């Protein structure tokens, strides 16, 4: 089981003003706000913590099918350079990749190396991006499991949780897209 999330930094800068009053307080705990304040590049830190929370939420709802908006309650905590996100009794490990263009976070129940594969979109249209992401993922699964791409079926639960079905097998996965970038992991 995996949850992942990507932030296109330029897109985030365009779409959100994290400096607007009360913005940080709505999304981040006091400790997280302190961490942001003391970080070198506050903008990058805001979006890193945000993507970690999103990835952790996507993993949480696979374990506990539900849908809600509680970013502040998913708290990012660093233990000697290992990042975890805690929500109530739930806890998961995060791996993070940062470039000047994007940040991708991946959440799993155990410590892990990043497996999310990046997709760069040529088209800005959301629907076509979604299709490109699914096609890339299908290709990837068909290679690793040695099956035909046309036997792979994408599903979404009532809570919006995605799975793929093939060979009477149901597999959990995570898809993310933002701005020019997408990523998938399974």
């Amino acid at each position, binding site marked *: 089981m995996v949850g992942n999330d990507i932030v296109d930094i330029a897109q985030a800068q365009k779409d*959100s003003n994290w400096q*607007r009053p009360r913005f940080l307080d709505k999304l981040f705990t006091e400790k997280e706000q302190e961490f942001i304040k003391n970080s070198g590049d506050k903008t990058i830190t805001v979006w890193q913590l945000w993507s970690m929370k999103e990835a952790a939420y996507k993993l949480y709802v696979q374990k506990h099918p539900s849908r809600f*908006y*509680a*970013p502040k309650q998913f708290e990012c905590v660093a233990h000697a350079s290992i990042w975890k996100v805690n929500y109530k009794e739930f806890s998961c490990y995060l791996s993070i990749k940062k470039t000047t263009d994007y940040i991708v976070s991946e959440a799993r129940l155990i410590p892990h190396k990043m497996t999310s594969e990046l997709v760069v979109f040529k088209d800005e249209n959301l629907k076509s991006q979604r299709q490109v992401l699914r096609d890339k993922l299908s290709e990837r699964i068909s290679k690793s499991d040695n099956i035909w791409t046309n036997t792979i079926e994408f599903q979404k639960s009532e809570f*919006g949780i995605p799975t793929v079905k093939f060979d009477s097998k149901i597999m959990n996965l995570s898809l993310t897209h933002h701005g020019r970038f997408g990523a998938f992991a399974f």
Partner: protein
Amino acid sequence: MTNNELIEKLKGIIAPYIQDEAAFENLNEDTDFVKDLKINSANLVDIILDIEDEFDIRLENEDMEKMLDVKSAMAIVNAKLDA
């Protein structure tokens, strides 16, 4: 404020963040911010802050948790205005 007036006000607040025009034109109480309007989850907080400013109210964590569709937003605003 009638339900229609409230929906109109919410429509104005939501408009800058939507990514699906057709769903926005057909907006009703059942419209989902993320599934239908394809609003980015980072922008949900902007909608929450805009609602707070517009109606001069403050939303708590419990209110935020349910802010996923027009119906819930209406219920939360109404409850706060009545309080």
